[in-house]
């Protein structure tokens, strides 16, 4: 198995430099990567409806008119997905509401449904779906659109590789159930793009890939007014949440890291023991954050050919910053985020480089370098 085959970064049977692998090796490696059954602990996708039309998104699936109660929104710091154009929707059961009393970990009611549609080159490719069940667990699924856009069918739990070309030698993959859980189940709340900061009306003008808000899109005050969000601390309505930063560039860079990295790099999440915290928080007792866990903190990552250890973020030195190296890499053993993308986000790299370059140099944190 090459990990390129495994991740779908390159077409099957082709290595990182576009050379064809011997057929027998390519076949054997591809089988290793693809033939294993889904792990027993992974929830099978058969729990989700067989067709997107069965999830309740549309009142009229043929006309693609939305069902009553389905609302749209755009997060101010969208997740980079290789340049996909996205549309998002949420629907709560009648009379139910999101409990926002902890502004950093909203609790969504049973029956919550969310959809995110991915398009490349103007064509719908997939619509991802999440639903909270009565027992509190979540269903994760994705639906693959027919090429003519007529309908979308439930994709297998193992995912589907290379469904559409998105660049030379690069194709978009539909995620496996494990991929969905890798990000969504790492955080205190599995809903990643619908939060106080992401809905804040104080939008960041420098946010990479910011999307125009469609008519009727929800923002934080609107979500509270509609009754969808309850118990939000009043202070966050009076002063909408904004990234903690001293400059516009820092605000945008930290917002990007929050939206793209914070689901895993969260001191309160499943990977807390890694000790890297890229989350922006607004609740009482908020602590950690990039200032304490990234800037000047040692990293065990080494760029290829580099002799010296790096810092996670070396203030004033982008080239010595592991975070930037990994953001700039799409080698599977180095890239960050580690899944869901095959193309480097050039805008983000430029922004993060500018942020790090503008940080005042300071002595590194003398923390032990722990194998994680």
């Amino acid at each position, binding site marked *: 198995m090459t990990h390129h085959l495994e991740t779908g970064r390159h077409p099957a049977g082709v290595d990182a430099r576009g050379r064809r692998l011997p057929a*027998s090796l390519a076949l054997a490696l591809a089988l290793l990567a693809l033939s294993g059954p889904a792990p027993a602990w992974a929830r099978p996708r058969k729990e989700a409806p067989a067709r997107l039309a069965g999830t309740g998104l549309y009142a009229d699936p043929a006309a693609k008119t939305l069902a009553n109660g389905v609302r749209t929104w755009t997060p101010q710091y969208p997740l980079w997905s290789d340049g996909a154009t996205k549309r998002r929707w949420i629907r709560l059961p009648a009379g139910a509401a999101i409990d926002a009393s902890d502004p950093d970990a909203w609790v969504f009611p049973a029956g919550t449904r969310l959809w995110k549609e991915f398009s490349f080159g103007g064509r719908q490719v997939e619509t991802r779906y999440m639903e909270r069940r009565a027992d509190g667990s979540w269903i994760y699924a994705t639906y693959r659109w027919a090429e003519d856009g007529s309908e979308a069918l439930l994709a297998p739990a193992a995912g589907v590789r290379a469904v559409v070309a998105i660049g030379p030698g690069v194709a978009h993959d539909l995620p496996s159930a494990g991929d969905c859980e890798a990000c969504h189940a790492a955080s205190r709340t599995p809903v990643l793009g619908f939060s106080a900061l992401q809905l804040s009306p104080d939008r960041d003008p420098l946010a990479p890939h910011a999307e125009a808000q469609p008519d009727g899109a929800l923002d934080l005050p609107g979500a509270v007014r509609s009754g969808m969000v309850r118990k939000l601390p009043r202070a966050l309505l009076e002063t909408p949440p904004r990234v903690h930063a001293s400059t516009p560039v820092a605000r945008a860079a930290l917002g990007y890291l929050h939206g793209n990295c914070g689901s895993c790099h969260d001191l309160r999440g499943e990977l807390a*023991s890694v000790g890297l915290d890229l989350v922006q928080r607004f609740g009482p007792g908020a602590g950690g954050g990039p200032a304490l866990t990234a800037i000047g903190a040692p990293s065990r990552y080494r760029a290829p050919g580099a002799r010296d250890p790096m810092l996670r973020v070396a203030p004033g030195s982008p080239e010595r910053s592991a975070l930037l190296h990994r953001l700039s890499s799409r*080698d599977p053993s180095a890239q960050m985020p580690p899944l869901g993308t095959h193309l480097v986000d050039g805008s983000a790299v430029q922004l993060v480089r500018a942020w790090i370059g503008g940080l005042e140099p300071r002595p590194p944190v003398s923390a032990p370098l722990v194998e994680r």
Partner: protein
Amino acid sequence: MKRILVALSTLAALTAAAETPRKPDPKQVARGKYLVTIGGCNDCHTPLKNTPSGPAWDQERMLSGHPETLKMPTAPASAEPWGLAFGSTMTAFSGPWGVSFSRNLTPDVETGLGAWTEKDFIATIRNGRHLGRGRPLLPPMPWFNYREATDEDLRAIFAYLRSIPAVKNRVEEPRPPSTETASAAPTGR
């Protein structure tokens, strides 16, 4: 200042949790040893050394992965059907994926699995990703076989790995294919 204190307290608590040893269950540890043995974990994670009777596992480095003192030069050019190359310690592997080095599985906190939780270990094996969520595990690690193990067996393996002597050995990170060209000069690292 308050934020700093909260963060430091959180980090301290996490560190303490990771380092607090749980009383090992001898039966569970024995089961784990059995599984590690028949699962062939030593084949790649314990370096071979030359002895008068031939290559043998270096028991002082048991399950500590590729020795950090052994800097591997660039792998030799491969020609089909000999497409893969293994180091003579059986801890370094070259193929289309680049070069991978077997990891340190001993409970050393800084360089091994000492800071890992049982949950981290199981998630890694189940998902084939570092900590269950990070980079993919590289060949020749056959995680896709081991992920079929029961939780009980994986817990036993982890319990055994926590019981063996800690070896301080910081294994080199994998080298991507782009840095491993057949014509490249040895890195001299």
